[in-house]
């Protein structure tokens, strides 16, 4: 993300906005300003059209029957895997498993890998910066099979304590599961370094890339991680789509996650054998239309260029930090320097975050308020609740200015 080297946006954000029909709507009579992109992103026409086109022209179940529609659906569905694989630098599309979302991807690793491979007193190392989806499955394993769960600390500036992380990796550590980019602070963690450190100790690495894949160039081969989880709906794809990347030999060695149709090779009354990758992990009829539309989202992001997206969102972030930082009554969390995504969590002194978000909503501005599914992190930073703005490529500096004006209004009204 060479932001400094890039002094001109490689695309025209105003032109690009035309691809997103929802951005034309009004909320409470005001043009929608959508700044809740860390929760889910809006969808371009290309994605909506792909969904529509699938149902209008190809709809049939996959991997079954020889009729033409089924054949076409199967090809398109497989092609979506290939697109995602290419987008994240996976050497083999068969190592990309489609899921419903990042949460399901992480659960897949917890159930299909960790359950069978970890035993009492083995350690899983996560960080205080995790989304609940990368905390709760490991707590479940701790309670069921007695693994230990350790947390890497986070500094006030929003940085992972990397020295502490080194110290916490021991010969008992079997998995390091770490968020690539924080959905609360925007911190981008050095996952390649973390992977190297974990591998030296013989531990596997799961990267929660729910926030990074949509906004930054991400290459699983370069990172070297064993697993990577992400959500399609946070990268312009439909809701109900997500994926897990896993090293092929690992996925081969694992037991399935869910059992039933499509994931089998052969079933007799006594036993079954498993289908090849990735189908072994995709039991039952998947969200075929959603997957194909996710493929269209990946095409859109590829054409845009992840570097260009990151550079532009970096400009938006700098602009927002500049506009917010002049006010001593706005407290911004964890922007202590270093690389950040376009995500800002903050509080307005004397005003409950809900009221801030409420006033913004009246102005047509969508932001999130609450604990952002990261309660341990929020507690560590001394903010139980906060307002969060998160940007994407279709946002503009003017929209950020509108949000800042609305924040001032909230302060005037409630402060």
């Amino acid at each position, binding site marked *: 993300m060479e932001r400094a080297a890039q002094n001109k946006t490689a695309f025209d954000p105003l032109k690009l906005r035309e691809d997103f029909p929802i951005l034309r709507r009004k909320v*409470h009579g005001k043009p929608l300003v959508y700044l809740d992109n860390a929760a889910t992103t809006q969808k371009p026409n290309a994605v909506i059209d792909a969904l529509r086109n699938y149902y209008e022209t190809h709809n049939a179940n996959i991997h079954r029957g020889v009729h033409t529609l089924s054949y076409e659906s199967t090809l398109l569905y497989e092609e979506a895997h290939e697109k995602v694989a290419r987008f994240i630098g996976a050497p083999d599309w068969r190592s990309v498993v489609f899921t419903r979302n990042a949460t399901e991807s992480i659960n897949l690793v917890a159930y299909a890998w960790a359950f069978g491979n970890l035993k009492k007193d083995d350690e899983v190392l996560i960080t205080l910066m995790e989304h609940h989806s990368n905390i709760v499955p490991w707590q479940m394993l701790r309670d069921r099979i007695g693994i230990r769960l350790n947390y890497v600390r986070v500094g006030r500036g929003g940085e992972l304590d990397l020295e502490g992380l080194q110290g916490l990796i021991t010969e008992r550590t079997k998995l390091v599961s770490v968020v690539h980019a924080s959905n609360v602070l925007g911190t981008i963690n050095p996952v390649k370094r973390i992977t190297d450190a974990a591998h030296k100790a013989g531990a596997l690495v799961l990267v929660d890339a729910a926030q990074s894949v949509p906004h930054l160039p991400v290459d699983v081969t370069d990172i070297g991680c064993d697993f990577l989880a992400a959500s399609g709906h946070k990268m312009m794809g439909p809701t109900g789509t997500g994926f897990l990347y896993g090293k092929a030999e690992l996925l081969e060695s694992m037991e399935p996650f869910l059992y039933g149709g499509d994931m089998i090779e052969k079933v007799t009354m006594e036993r079954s054998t498993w289908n090849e990758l990735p189908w072994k992990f995709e039991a039952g009829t998947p969200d075929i239309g959603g997957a194909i539309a996710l493929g269209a989202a990946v095409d859109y992001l590829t054409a845009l260029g992840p570097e260009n997206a990151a550079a532009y969102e970096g400009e938006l972030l700098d602009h927002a930090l500049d506009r917010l930082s002049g006010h001593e009554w706005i407290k911004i969390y964890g922007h202590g320097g270093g690389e950040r995504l376009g995500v800002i969590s903050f509080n307005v002194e004397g005003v409950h975050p*809900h*009221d801030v978000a409420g006033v913004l909503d009246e102005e047509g501005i969508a932001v999130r*308020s*609450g604990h952002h599914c990261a309660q341990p992190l929020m507690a560590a930073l001394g903010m*139980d609740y906060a307002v969060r703005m998160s940007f994407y490529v279709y946002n503009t500096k003017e929209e950020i200015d509108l949000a800042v004006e609305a924040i001032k209004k909230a302060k005037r*009204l*409630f402060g």
Partner: protein
Amino acid sequence: MEPDQYEYILDHYKNPRNYGKIEGADASYEEGIPSCGDVVRIDVKLNDRVIEDLKYSGTGCAISQASVSILTESVMGKSVGEILSMKDEDMLSALGKPISPVRFKCALLGVKVLKKALLAKSAA
């Protein structure tokens, strides 16, 4: 939305009525909205199934806290039956300002807690 429309809510938010706790209350209940951190507790003193005294405590956004303050002023002397038959609209229309549906949950937390307190009492 004009600023002055918030006046009534802000008045109750900043100068809460009937704030506190009742020692030896006949009915008490506390509930929160975990996703946003609003919490309301209500203590009620009853006299022959009529509300004789009521106090609330809690933390949270202006809408949730002002709504319960406004509620406490209107329910003194009312019967349990009257409270239990209160409709959501009764509460929403008492706020002096149209509330966006996204905030209904906050605005209705107080009535919900009061009803639960009274129901728990009736069940006991």
